[in-house]
């Protein structure tokens, strides 16, 4: 009895040590960034690991006035939220139609929609930039929203149609027998059931939009339209800027997305539990 207990605990020690090591690996860069954002440059160069002696919160004010980082964060958030909204309104009904094969050529359409899943964004970078010249999309938020909603389209439609296929079709068939229109089925039945799926695709889309760099760096050149990636990249190789300002900017750019994650993680976790119950 004792022996078995020891054996298990030996395995457990390795298990938890590894888990802790990876925890350190993920936490340390964040810790390093936060403490460095509160030091002045001499302190950073003295030791990059040590805790700051004086907490210099004015670094954040300086970072914002130098790089306009709050404005950039807001721009990124605005673009992400609008483009995801537009995309989901298009994707959810379409995924339902495709998942349930409500239309002739559903499988062809599905392949058409998923084709771009395999295609890197930056492949289509130049044509999108060319198109922007045609329609006056340079430094235009509306153009960026439309482009971004298309860029995440395939991934979301992949996730959504996969999720809807997992929903028992008897549910929506019953609704259709009771006289519910297709539109009604999608918005009143499929959307509430597939909330976890929607949350997942929104998160994936949000991450890629909020963090998107190549298109934003070409299309949004004016400082007031800069997204967070563009504003941060401007620090790269700029030796005039204080290091602490760079770190402060990184922290500011991280804040909204960390808050977003903590809020939405609840949603995802609930979805997982619901899936487990159903299984």
């Amino acid at each position: 009895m004792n022996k078995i207990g020891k054996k298990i605990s030996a395995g457990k020690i390795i298990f938890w040590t590894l888990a802790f090591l990876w925890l350190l690996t993920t936490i340390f860069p964040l810790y390093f960034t936060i403490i460095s954002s509160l030091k002045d440059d001499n302190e950073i160069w003295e030791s990059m690991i040590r805790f700051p002696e004086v907490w210099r919160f004015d670094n954040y004010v300086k970072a914002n006035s130098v790089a306009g980082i709050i404005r950039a964060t807001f721009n990124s958030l605005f673009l992400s939220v609008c483009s995801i909204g537009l995309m989901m309104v298009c994707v959810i009904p379409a995924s339902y139609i495709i998942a349930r094969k409500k239309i002739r050529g559903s499988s062809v359409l599905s392949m058409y929609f998923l084709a771009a899943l395999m295609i890197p964004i930056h492949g289509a970078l130049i044509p999108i930039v060319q198109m922007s010249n045609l329609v006056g999309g340079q430094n235009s938020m509306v153009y960026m929203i439309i482009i971004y909603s298309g860029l995440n389209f395939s991934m979301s439609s992949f996730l959504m149609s996969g999720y809807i296929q997992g929903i028992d079709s008897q549910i929506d068939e019953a609704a259709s027998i009771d006289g519910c229109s297709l539109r009604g089925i999608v918005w009143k039945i499929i959307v509430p059931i597939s909330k976890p799926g929607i949350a997942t695709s929104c998160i994936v889309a949000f991450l890629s939009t909020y963090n998107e760099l190549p298109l934003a760096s070409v299309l949004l050149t004016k400082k007031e339209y800069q997204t967070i990636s563009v504003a941060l990249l401007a620090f790269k190789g700029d030796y005039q800027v204080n290091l602490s300002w760079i770190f402060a900017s990184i922290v500011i750019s991280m804040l909204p997305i960390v808050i977003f994650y903590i809020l939405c993680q609840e949603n995802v976790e609930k979805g997982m539990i619901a899936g487990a119950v159903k299984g």
Partner: protein
Amino acid sequence: MRLLPPSRKNLIIIKTINKGGKKGLLKLFDKSPFLKEKNMSNNGKKNKGALPLILPAFILYSAVVAYPLLNMLYTSFFEWNGVYTTPYVFAGLKNYASFFQDESVHIALKNIVIIMVTSVVGIVPIGLFLASVIQKKFFGLRFVRVSYFLPVIINKVSVGLMFTFILYPMKGPFAQIVKLFGGNEKVNVLGNMQLAIWAVAFVLIWCNVGLHMVLYSSAMAAIPDDLTESAKLDGASRRQIFFNITLPLIGNTIQISVVLILMNAFKIYDLVVALTGGGPGNSTEVLSTILFKNAFYYGKFGYANAIGVITVLISLLITVVINGVLRACRKD
């Protein structure tokens, strides 16, 4: 539609329209009584209104994704400097020929292979391990879970900046750790022709593991408890349960995640730009950075589009090959 008397001939026309799949046209006929009957018997009621639901998606996708891709294919056969007034000069396959002669392309392809292989080798096992960690119930689970996932959501440019300083020679934390273990503290990882690409690959793994952890963990959570419970009752060890029950049941998820990992690695751009910018020299160049530089620094838009087309072709090839291989593996 009043122009059409309900004659036998017109019914046939309507039927053929129906067969052609143009459901939108049928909506116009809905009000006439003889067609309603036809529809009911034809199971057409079920699909009423399907077209307007899918149309916005179709238009959006075609305009923003499909059209640029076709345009890219077209432009790749021309020489063009990006200025609107200058005409396209037909170049045939010249752009593609120079792709294969470009030395930086060879480096880029080699780098991408390195990044893809290390990504899969790193992310799948670490992701599975972390997923099984967060499946357990312990104090501080939420904190651990959030920390594991955080790198996924942090902006890649800030990650790049962060690691630029972490990997800084002499003063950086990484150099200090190397010194602690008796290594050379002057090690300049990002400035080293051989090491830089491995640093990029590691940072990419660091960024993406959390996402796949969540993927696996949700698949694990969907495994019915009675399966693992009954295995436990039968005396199976944790390891046996993991390899014989959990792993086969989430095989589908792993397949999806491998494709995702490879695509993510292939698409890598932000990290390279923020970490090394393709340097030192061109040792960490990848296809996307070459494409970007050719288009917006050198003004070779035709050539850049050719790179784009080849990028697309390679990624399609990867997906097809991976799916084929994995399907064959699962059949065995």
